[in-house]
């Protein structure tokens, strides 16, 4: 099992800068499908599935190793060392923005810049800090996950209703979107939503672009503003978008903001 197979690594395009796109909790590299092709016209784009997610090699998931985000960060460091070429920018969605933070902490100098899509240094409310969630909310999420995964008997895909107007999606592709092992999903949910990386993020010195949706339940404005306030020279870019996945629902705005940020940091093409 090599690194490429373990994390289903795919390389698109070539360019002076490498962009490593890392998906968040609940999905896989398919999340970048509307952004990656446009980025690949100018940059070397590295796509991956975090261990335990999507088409990664699931048996490589060891609960101890992934009990904190550091295990994922080690994986991403290895992937960058193997597949990146030139200055490297980690584009991390949601929890993976914090994985990017840990990459810089664990391997200083490896990353030239960060693009954080809907980042949150801490999802739980804590005194004056507004993460947006309480401990009981996260417990409720775990119950919801459990209920939804009950019907996912190991290999069986959930029923697809059939989308006659979308023939471009093959059945095979449809059923493999964002599939995950129930036990892994539950642990990843706990690790994601109970983590607190406010101290780690305050040590970031590379330039960072924060893409903040105007209406995002998972990463509310207060979370994005917090990251912006502790990372020196960071840019908070508001994206007109409802929901947690602006790279899916507002790809053009995301692309424009990323291009501008890279050009301003002499990484653009």
């Amino acid at each position, binding site marked *: 099992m090599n690194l490429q197979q373990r994390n289903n690594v795919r390389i698109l395009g070539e360019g002076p800068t490498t962009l490593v796109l890392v998906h968040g909790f609940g999905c896989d590299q398919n999340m970048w499908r509307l952004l990656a092709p446009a980025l690949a016209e100018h940059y070397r784009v590295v796509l991956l599935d975090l261990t335990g997610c999507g088409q990664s090699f699931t048996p490589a998931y060891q609960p101890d190793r992934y009990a904190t985000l550091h295990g994922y960060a080690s994986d991403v460091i290895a992937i960058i060392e193997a597949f990146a070429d030139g200055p490297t920018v980690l584009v991390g969605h949601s929890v993976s923005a914090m994985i990017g933070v840990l990459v810089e902490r664990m391997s200083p100098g490896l990353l030239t810049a960060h693009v954080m899509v809907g980042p949150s240094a801490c999802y739980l409310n804590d005194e004056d800090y507004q993460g947006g969630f309480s401990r009981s909310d996260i417990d409720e999420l775990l119950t*919801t996950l459990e209920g939804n995964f009950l019907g996912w008997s190991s290999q069986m895909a959930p029923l697809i209703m059939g989308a006659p107007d979308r023939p471009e999606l093959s059945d095979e592709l449809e059923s493999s979107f*964002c599939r995950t092992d129930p036990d892994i999903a539950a642990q990843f949910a706990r690790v994601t939503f109970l983590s607190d990386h406010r101290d780690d993020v305050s040590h970031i010195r590379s330039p960072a672009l924060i893409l903040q949706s105007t209406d995002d339940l998972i990463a509310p404005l207060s979370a994005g503003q917090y990251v912006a306030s502790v990372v020196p020279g960071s840019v908070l870019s508001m994206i007109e978008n409802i*929901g947690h996945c602006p790279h899916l629902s507002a790809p053009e705005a995301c692309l424009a903001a990323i291009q501008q940020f890279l050009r301003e940091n002499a990484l653009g093409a």
Partner: protein
Amino acid sequence: MTDNTPTLPNADWQDAPCGLLIVNSGGMIERVNARLCAWLGYEAQALALKMAFMNLLSIGGRIFYQTHIAPLVRMQGEAADLKLDLVTASGERLPALMNIARRADDSLSVSCVLMSGRAQYEQELLLMKRRAEDAVTNLTRGRVDAEDRALLAEQMIGIVSHDLRNPLMAITAGLDLLAPVSTTDRQRKVHALTVSAAGRAERLIRDLLDFTAARIGTGLAITRRSTDVFRSLEDAVDEMRLGFPEHVLRLTCTGRSHFEIDPDRLVQLLGNLVGNAVRYGAPGRPIEISVNGDEDLHLSVQNEGSPIPLEQQALLFDAMVRGQSERNAEGVGLGLFIVRAIAEAHGGEVTVQSSSDTGTCFSVRLASS
């Protein structure tokens, strides 16, 4: 609220036995049928364009929706089989099963059915599943621990038995030196008893070492060599007669006598079987030893006496099993285990027949090669 769908008039879907919703591209509820309003305890006017679809879900459901369902619907146009709780106007949770489809204008159509009973059943299933998983974990852990302890005990037997051989050799050598200087009757008697006790200790240790070799080592070793079986056995039986003067041992030999076998193991096997017959057979009754050589070597030892209960016969060849006898409890219950190990090492087997009419008979077959 109006509906102009030509195929399904307003009234038909208002009271359909499922909740139906249209959610606009901004996430707000645009239309909702009467059935769902009734379930939720809201007036339609309080929902339409006033409430976000998200707000009908529990917080846990909202996180799952935002991180998994929404991207799924956007990428593949639909998501089905979603189990989410609806939150009513009074804050009550209604477990529901939902299907969501994206429409051309990026609005969503949502259908849901209530599943309270099924949700409860699934909860019980989950609980049972968790209990079963815990039970399996505990059993596995217990079994691994027990196996570890058993292996340690068997290794210990091997080590201790091996280490006991050296002091015993010193005792035996000392007894040899003492033989010529034991001159009085009392001294000779004590000397003879001590020699016999040392011999018994030596046999015990040999049995224990054979046992550990058969159980955890490379298996019980045999060295086949050309053997005059009748002669070996006649010599061995003569020695046994000296050892058991109060018993009558009868040896009958027929057929072929020359075999490629391990003669020391053969004598050990016979010794264990005769020892058993002496210990458990009827006192004073003859013990019949029959040997017949054809293609294989067949040997049987028969004694009279009370039969071995049927339920014990199956366990007889396991280690540490001993018959009921008040007499002479020499040994630790390894005799028949070793008999079987020797027979199997020779590509043969041992069987037992026992009844009140014929007494007990152990039959051994050793393959010629």
